[in-house]
């Protein structure tokens, strides 16, 4: 159980760094979705099932869709 936690935490850091460095906002949206997946897994490992459920529904589903919708209505380009 402990090792799952440690490995997933490392993945989370990867996803977070990639989500803020990538130069395409749609890719940011997708990577942010992956970040939410990892977070959900982490909370399931720590036994916080309700939080994991909320993150699975909110973070992975709806907020990614909002993000894509906003990118759809603005621009994908970013300088950094």
């Amino acid at each position, binding site marked *: 159980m402990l090792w799952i936690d440690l490995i*997933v935490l490392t993945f989370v850091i990867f996803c977070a760094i990639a989500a803020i460095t990538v130069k395409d906002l*749609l*890719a940011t949206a997708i990577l942010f*979705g992956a970040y939410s997946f990892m977070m*959900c897994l982490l909370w399931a490992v720590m036994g916080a099932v309700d939080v994991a*459920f909320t993150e699975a529904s909110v973070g*992975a589903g709806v907020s990614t869709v909002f993000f894509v919708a906003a990118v759809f209505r603005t621009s994908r380009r*970013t300088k950094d």
Partner: protein
Amino acid sequence: MITFFLSVALGLLFLMLFSIYRALFGPTVLDRLIGVNAIGSKTVVLLLLIGFLYERVDMFVDIALAYAFLNFIAVLAASRYFHKRKGLYEESFMD
């Protein structure tokens, strides 16, 4: 059996590394989407495995089911973007 489940979970996490590589290093946005989709499908299984490790799997099935739905919706929305907007190649490479 618990040890076996734990090793299966660690194996799945190791395999997730490949998908994360694809999600992080593109090259195109759609490749990232493939990577995230693969991460999602592994996560469904991992959630059930964690449920067995806690010996309370009935609580985790709901989360896995919701996960399967919402992963689908997110992937659909992201790919639907390209049905309406053109131009995949602009700024699609990481650095």
